[in-house]
């Protein structure tokens, strides 16, 4: 792997990890979601830092360039995270549905109680 590419990918991986850490610290990102991202960041950093020293392994797997291997691994991890997000959104949407129904039913109950009060 080209030395410039090596350095850039290491810097970006570290920056990425720091960004996740900072988001968690400022409570903008919940720990449960942060964990998967930390894992991704760590894996990418590991591959970036190792670079060509993992060349034998990569070549055995059929990759010509170490950077290609990093790319492929990253994309798979991102797919896993995206799927996880869809699961999270599905559960949020179910929660919103239930809450909306409860608000509607409670408003109806309140209005009926107010009507009864007005009569008495």
């Amino acid at each position, binding site marked *: 792997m080209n030395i410039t590419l090596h350095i850039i990918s290491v810097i970006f991986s570290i920056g990425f990890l720091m960004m996740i850490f900072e988001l968690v610290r400022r409570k903008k990102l919940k720990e449960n979601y942060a964990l998967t991202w930390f894992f991704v960041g760590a894996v990418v950093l590991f591959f970036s830092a190792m670079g060509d020293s993992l060349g034998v392994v990569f070549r055995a797997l059929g990759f010509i360039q170490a950077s290609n291997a990093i790319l492929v691994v990253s994309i798979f991890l991102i797919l896993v995270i995206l799927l996880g997000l869809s699961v999270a959104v599905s559960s949020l949407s179910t929660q*919103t*549905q239930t809450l*909306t*129904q409860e*608000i*509607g*039913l409670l*408003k*109806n109950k309140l*209005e009926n109680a107010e009507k009864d009060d007005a009569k008495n």
Partner: protein
Amino acid sequence: MIGENILVIVPAYNEEKALPALLRELAEVVPPRHTLVINDGSSDCTSSAARRAGVEVVDLPLNMGIGVAMQTGYKFAQRRGFQFAVQCDADGQHVPAQITMLLEKMRETGADMVIGSRFIGDEDGFKSSFVRRQFIGYFSWWIHLISGVRVFDVTSGFRLCNRKAIELFAEEYPFDYPEPEAIVLVHQSGLGVAETPVRMRERQGGVSSIGFFAGAYFVVKVSIGLLVRRLRSGK
């Protein structure tokens, strides 16, 4: 007047035009406190149109779609202790006077859910467009294939449920075009489904919620949804 402890659930999204006439018709069949309009986050005066008629109104703060609105009605029925619940479209397609026919069929068959059908018996009246009938036929075949139940008018929203079905739907109800899936849900929960001929009218106002792209989504989503239900239950 129907003497039973029955709730008529009318989900309504921007139906201010057709709603008053329907509610007048319903008032001849059930007392006003036995009619529940679920206003599904309408942007027009659906809510005040319903309130003027003196019926029960639940305003959902957001537009959540027919499935969520309908389930709100079943939760209401479940909590207020209603023994029966009827679904009735707000656009005037369903004829309130025919609720008694659904009740009769339920008494006769002991089914837990009775569907008012356009496609059985010799009732005339509005039968939907040619294209839609083909899709309805396809869903009917698909439901029969995967669950063994034979229902002809699978998309009919004119339905009567007894207490058991009310409790089931309060717990779980399909979202987005729920009618065909609800049939499979009822069947897989060990409850009985029956179908009885009714006469329907063309919608009295508003526009259909299903256009071309929504139609394509409808077909794919419901086909898969039905299949998933089958796989989930393992029956």
